[in-house]
């Protein structure tokens, strides 16, 4: 793909500049130095190019992830929320190294994240759990082979030890040894998702990327998986990048919340503050579309209709060259939002929001 190559060379040329910027950001975050940064993404972008039709010469660009900067601290659950098409799964794949980035850099523990570097072996440190437990396990392999494969590949264990190794991992995720010799189709959805988690734990990673780990599961089983994840995180001092669209789960387990829209980060806030008062208008819409559970029937069914609701796929709204991506649907938008793009800036209390008018709430 020539387009991607060109972007990569562009990135290489600018590496020097980017490194200077890293220094700046590190200084900034030195204020809360008690938290150690484990992952640091700088101006990360991923553009997909496609032809509109077979005969078309012009290519369109979808900015799945567009120039985003964030950091994840050690021993923290960093939740990424947003609707379909906002780029949250692309972000997960970029960090896991499953797709090539267009530009920007990811730093892991201060080192440039490069999965081709065999000495550093980042695959051992970063693992991913996929959304769909039905399609992410090889149907022709037995469970113990599936679980122990990454460890064998990384020379953590010998091939003859893999049965015992898989048994101990299954115990960690709360499954019995009976299923060691079964095939994935013999297991239920919750069991399969645990097998997926066990597989990613087999190389004892420091950072786990969870791409909607419970959205394919039933509510009684999703509680089991969430408990397991919280246990593991507290016990093994792991960090999670937890991707979801369910804000109730975010509120339950996350330390910090990152809201994405149209490939951009709208807001990064500590979870407690976020659920007290969302800063960005889009976060506010998301927060208000969360159905209250223990409250009385107070949902205003008409309040979110029309302009305020974020409907439709985001990739459809192309043509926004400059200005805020959320401009068209925003209730707080003014002239300045159409012309200038709001940068992700500090809005107090360790919170960041990319909005000119944060904390504006209409009567929804």
């Amino acid at each position, binding site marked *: 793909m020539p387009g991607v190559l060109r972007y990569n060379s562009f990135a290489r040329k600018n590496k020097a500049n980017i490194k200077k910027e890293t220094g700046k950001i590190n200084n900034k975050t030195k204020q809360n130095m008690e938290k150690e940064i484990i992952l640091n993404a700088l101006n990360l972008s991923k553009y997909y190019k496609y032809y509109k039709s077979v005969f078309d010469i012009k290519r369109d660009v979808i900015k799945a992830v567009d120039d985003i900067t964030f950091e994840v601290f050690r021993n923290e659950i960093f939740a990424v929320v947003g609707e379909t098409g906002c780029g949250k799964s692309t972000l997960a794949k970029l960090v896991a190294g499953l797709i090539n980035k267009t530009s920007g850099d990811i730093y892991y523990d201060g080192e440039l994240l490069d999965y081709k570097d065999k000495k550093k072996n980042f695959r051992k440190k970063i693992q991913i759990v996929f959304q769909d437990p039905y399609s992410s396990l090889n149907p022709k392999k037995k469970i113990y082979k599936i679980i122990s494969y990454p460890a064998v590949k990384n020379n953590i264990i010998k091939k003859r030890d893999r049965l015992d190794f898989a048994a101990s991992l299954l115990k960690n995720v709360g499954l019995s040894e009976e299923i060691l010799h079964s095939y994935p189709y013999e297991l239920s959805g919750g*069991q399969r998702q645990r097998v997926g988690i066990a597989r990613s734990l087999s190389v004892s990673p420091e950072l786990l990327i969870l791409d909607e780990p419970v959205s394919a599961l039933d509510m*009684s089983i999703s*509680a089991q998986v969430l408990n397991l994840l919280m246990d593991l995180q507290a016990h093994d001092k792991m960090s999670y990048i937890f991707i979801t669209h369910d804000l*109730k789960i975010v509120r*339950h387990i996350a330390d910090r919340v990152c809201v994405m829209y149209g490939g951009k980060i709208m807001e990064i806030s500590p979870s407690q503050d976020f659920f007290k008062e969302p800063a960005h208008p889009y976060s506010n819409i998301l927060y208000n579309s969360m159905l209250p559970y223990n409250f009385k029937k107070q949902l205003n069914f008409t309040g979110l209709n029309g302009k305020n609701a974020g409907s439709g796929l985001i990739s459809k709204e192309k043509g926004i060259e400059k200005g805020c991506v959320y401009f068209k649907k925003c209730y707080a938008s003014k002239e300045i939002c159409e012309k200038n793009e709001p940068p992700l800036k500090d809005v107090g209390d360790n919170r960041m929001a990319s909005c000119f008018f944060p904390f504006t709430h209409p009567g929804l």
Partner: protein
Amino acid sequence: MAYGGKTKTMNLEIKDLTVRLYPKKNAGRHINVVDSVDLYVNGGEIAAVVGESGSGKSFLGLSIMRLNPPDVSEVVSGSVKIKCPGEKEELDIMRLNPKNLPSVRGRLVSIVFQDPNTSLNPVIKIGEQITEAIFAHKKIGKPEAKEIAISYLNRMNIDGKARFNAYPHELSGGMRQRVMIAMAMVLNPCFLIADEPTTALDVTTSLQVLSLIEKIKLESNLGIIFITHDLSIAKNISDKIYVFYAGQVMECGKTEEIMDNPLHPYTVSLINSVPSLPADYMPKQKLFTIPGYLTKDDFTEGKCRFYSRCFKRDNNCLKNIPLNEISRGMFARCIKV
């Protein structure tokens, strides 16, 4: 279960409905995937059927319209009686001649399926798919049918004129689901079965679809059976709730009463296992879990179907348990309450 008052003009009553599911190739025994279910909906009312996957709630929705696959399943007993304002007498769908079924489907009872991406035909324009339903029931010309279709699309907050000739892939997920609802509503049915209409959608779009369902319920005095696995949706949209487990109604009653003080251990566990949002809520606590998962063995007779996962079980539970009226309008299938 006839909870609350019956309105005389418009109601749908399911009595003692049992649907048997035969395993393919005679492997293993048959199971009652819907087991003596009583359900009751009036016009202008939403009854939510809540349960986890595999509990038979979608099968209930299909068998109400007799859409259950005939090669593997069979309605053993029971009746589904429908009374509509336009009809002269009560209709029992289960006793109906299969020839007459198409005249009932869509006209009196309609269904909205879970996944709008797979339930629309990708190579036919949505306008055509909607008018197809009209032509099947009414003898009218194309222009009139188009007008009706456009007016219904407009009711669903879709620009009917502009989108009439659109293909499904040109619409977003929420729009497709709204087209599905327009298709179901175009013959002005009395009852709508909504089989997880918002599961495949985003939070913001799901709220739009829910508000739309609420709107059409108020506008055309529709009776809705809302099948879902999400308790918070059921709580916010429904008037009464039927909690479903392994083919049986475990508990039913008014929504507020069930949500405020659930009786059956299964309902209690379900409500506790979802992260909730009260004001004094503590994050990072352990969630309540139900051990194990729903299996085929749970469908066997001669014990409480929730026995293997229940936290209140003892030897008294190893018998068939009837649905008892605990207090006025509240029913639970448990001997421990």
